[in-house]
């Protein structure tokens, strides 16, 4: 029941917010999203007590003749992803308090609807339902980017929509192909375990075809080189909150999808093409890092750094071993929090100085010391310094990739060095050095901005020092996943 409630609540809340006028909408949305986080915490404690509690799953027939069920459930991995989502959404809403968006009711309503779809993606235990939520998530974010985005948003959001839909349609065909091979007492079924069985019964060349059909959808969402071309433009053009949703949570749909809906389905396909996919991911890491180094715009730099990070996550997942996947899950959590922080910093910089070009900035530390410290902590988390939240995941990931191939691990490890280069250089340019004359004085931060940044910093440090509660869940979750991979 709780599982269904986690989906239903943001849906109703979102619809309600559409009808609220003015700034009350954002307060209401914030309240609702905090309640949703409370529900997720409830699920967390319930899960700690009894991972198989019946409150954590829900199953109802949707279309009987086609074997489609509204079947959702919270397992370890889903729990972590839901915690991430429900933790980030209130922060994202709070971060928007200093911006005045036109038609706030639509803006916040769409964010809550987006949350509904995201939570649904992570919980779906029915292939069809998974696809429906997957597509549903696209519609609110499309409108958020289209209505509140920056320059040239029409063309860019359009590219984004068509790109992702193109991948999704292939995934749909792949999933239907699997569904057609299921056989549960003579009937077809969409249940996740039945799809696993069906996928494994396929011959090798069929599995390879299904592998690419499904992988292409996830690869576009993450995005993996060479399917990333929609990403930097979209991230830069989208309103900050849209970028946060895209990078913080939505790209995790792709990595999550690979773990749950690809690896266990086509083991032979993975064996044959996994190496190629890892090579693509690693290429993406290096490629994106090099581009990031030469970026002038800070927001675009973060967009490229995101491609690099997600490339490592994807390589870890595709190496299909305990460390790799566990590291991926940990890194998904850490990256989600850090990238939201970084994009928020880019937003604050822009609001205070009117530019994101790093050459035009400088010496801000002298004007606002608190901001400099908060920025530094988030930045260190992003470059995965030990004792920050990024470290655990990155360490496990490189370990996992190493077990697959030492060369790949060495190449993927470059992300650590290159990441440090572009992140620290950007800090140097923006915060240190000479005060740039074109800057207006960088005043104190708004209270809500401080709150958001402080919460993120606390999380960065706290889970760097003590990642155990999350790591334990991830470890157990991956053990079950590994059983499915055997």
């Amino acid at each position, binding site marked *: 029941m709780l599982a269904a409630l986690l989906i239903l609540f943001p849906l109703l809340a979102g619809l309600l917010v559409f009808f609220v006028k003015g700034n009350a909408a954002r307060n209401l949305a914030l309240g609702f999203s905090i309640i949703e986080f409370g529900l997720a915490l409830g699920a967390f404690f319930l899960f700690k007590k009894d991972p198989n509690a019946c409150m954590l799953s829900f199953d109802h027939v949707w279309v009987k*003749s086609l074997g489609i069920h509204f079947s959702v459930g919270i397992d370890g991995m889903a729990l972590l992803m839901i915690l991430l989502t429900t933790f980030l959404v209130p922060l994202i809403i709070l971060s928007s308090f200093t911006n005045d968006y036109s038609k706030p009711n639509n803006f916040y309503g769409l964010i809550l609807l987006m949350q509904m779809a995201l939570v649904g993606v992570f919980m779906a235990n029915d292939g069809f339902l998974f696809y*429906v939520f997957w597509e549903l998530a696209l519609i609110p974010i499309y409108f958020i980017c289209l209505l509140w985005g920056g320059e040239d948003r029409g063309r860019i959001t359009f590219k984004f929509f068509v790109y992702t839909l*193109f991948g999704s349609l292939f995934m749909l065909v792949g999933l239907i192909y699997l569904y057609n091979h299921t056989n549960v007492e003579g009937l077809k079924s969409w249940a996740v375990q039945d799809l696993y069985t069906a996928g494994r019964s396929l011959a090798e060349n069929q599995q390879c075809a299904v592998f690419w059909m499904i992988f292409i959808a996830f690869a576009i969402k993450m995005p993996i080189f060479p399917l990333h071309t929609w990403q930097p433009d979209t991230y830069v053009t989208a309103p900050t909150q849209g970028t946060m949703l895209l990078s913080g949570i939505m790209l995790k749909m792709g990595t999550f999808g690979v773990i749950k809906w690809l690896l266990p389905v086509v083991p032979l396909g993975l064996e044959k093409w996994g190496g190629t996919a890892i090579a693509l991911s690693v290429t993406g890491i290096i490629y994106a890092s090099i581009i990031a180094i030469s970026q002038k715009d800070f927001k675009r730099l973060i967009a490229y750094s995101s491609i690099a990070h997600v490339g490592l996550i994807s390589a870890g997942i595709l190496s299909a071993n305990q460390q790799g996947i566990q590291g991926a899950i940990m890194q998904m959590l850490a990256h989600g929090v850090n990238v939201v922080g970084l994009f928020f910093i880019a937003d604050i910089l822009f609001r205070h100085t009117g530019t994101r070009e790093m050459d035009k900035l400088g010496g801000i530390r002298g004007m606002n010391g608190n901001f400099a410290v908060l920025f530094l902590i988030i930045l260190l988390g992003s470059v995965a310094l030990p004792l920050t939240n990024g470290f655990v995941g990155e360490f496990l990931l490189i370990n996992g990739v190493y077990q697959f191939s030492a060369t790949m691990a060495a190449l993927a490890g470059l992300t650590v060095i290159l990441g440090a280069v572009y992140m620290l250089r950007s800090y140097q340019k923006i915060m240190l050095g000479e005060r740039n004359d074109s800057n207006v004085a960088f005043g104190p931060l708004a209270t809500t901005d401080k709150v958001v940044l402080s919460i993120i910093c606390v999380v960065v440090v706290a889970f760097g020092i003590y990642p155990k509660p999350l790591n334990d869940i991830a470890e157990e979750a991956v053990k079950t996943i590994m059983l499915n991979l055997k």
Partner: protein
Amino acid sequence: MKGLLIISGLGILAMLAEIFKFKKLLFPMVLIGIVAAYAFNFMEWKTGMSIPYFDNMIGFDKLGIAFSGIIIATAFFWFILANDYFEEETSLVDHFALVLFALVGALMLTSFKNMTTLFLGVEIMSIPLYVLAASKKKDIKSNEAGFKYLIMGSFASGFLLFGIALVYGATGSFDLMQIRSFISEHGADMPLFFYVGVVFMLIAMCFKISAAPFHFWAPDVYQGSPTLITALMSTVVKTAAFAAFMRLFMVGFAEISSVWTGILAGIIALSLVIANFSAAMQNNVKRILAYSSISHAAFMLMVILANVRSNLSVNALIYYSLAYSLGSIAAFGIVYNVTKKGNENVDAFNGLAKRNPSLALCMTVAMLSLAGIPITSGFFAKYFVFTAMIGTQYKWLLIIAVLTSAVGVYYYLRIVIAMYFKKQDTHEPITIERSNILVIVLTTAATIAIGIVPGIVAEMFEF
């Protein structure tokens, strides 16, 4: 059957209205009559018997009744949408009568049992439409549309008639079931001219549903005709033509499917590619919708191609027709109101979200449904087609369908982007009749409703 009779009666009544001076009463009478026809249709569905009429010329079996239901319901919405359109015209009653007779033809097509009824249905449906297409007497485009439609339509009818004659020559019967059993008895030694006849009929039917390469008339006719007549063509006419296509080929010529499936696969592939890429290059909304209707025709043909005479494919076709009709009625209703000023290009939609947010929202839902995005009904429609196709040997066709669907999103979204993103040229609010709002909202709501609970339609047939 009673529905068919009622609507025929209404048609005759409409012609008498001018003479006996009850023009004002006509509109409510037509609406009541259509509701009654729907009710009788529904009751026949409940009893579930298929009684052949007129020496087995026509007989409403479950399949026919289901398609009739869709057609009558669409016509109901259409009449409400069109009430002010009729008031503006001087020859009000003629138009009523013409549309009603077209409906009679459409209903005959859903349930013919005999080749002569098929031909009669096609002609009864088409001839009023030739007139209606040209009904804006002073508009040259409308005249062109009517003329083009007439010439091309007659040409297709010729093909159909020739095909029927050849098939009759080979099998000695006009009756669909007798033809079928004749084929299964003499399967191997049918004469060549029989196959020529089948292919001729295929060409004629493809013309009627405007599948490529027999689609050339569609964009011009859709653009030139008055918008509401276009709406009628792309919903009622299309559904009826499909019902006929399905009955003819899945019942009559099922035994020799190996002959026509190959040709059909080629037609579908061509339609998908030509329609979607052409639509992407259009600026006129009605032309975009015309090409979109060609692409949807290709999707529906895929179900017939999959040719598994199972619950799934019959349900799939019915669901597809319904989803497509609802989405199209909503879309055309909005297009009709937005383009009243005469500008029919995409930029007529610029800034609609500011001028009338709820209308923009309905249009968005309609576009998403036509593009096949969940949770609209268009998504399930597409899903059923994919599911039907994936078990067949035509997987390459499925890949083409997926690729062209992505192209399809391009032109549907262009309208959405125009509404939400582009600056409006005028600030004039859009005036819409209450009745039109009602239809648009109802069809939009239904589009979402059967997208959320597709079971009510998709489980209608449990053989």
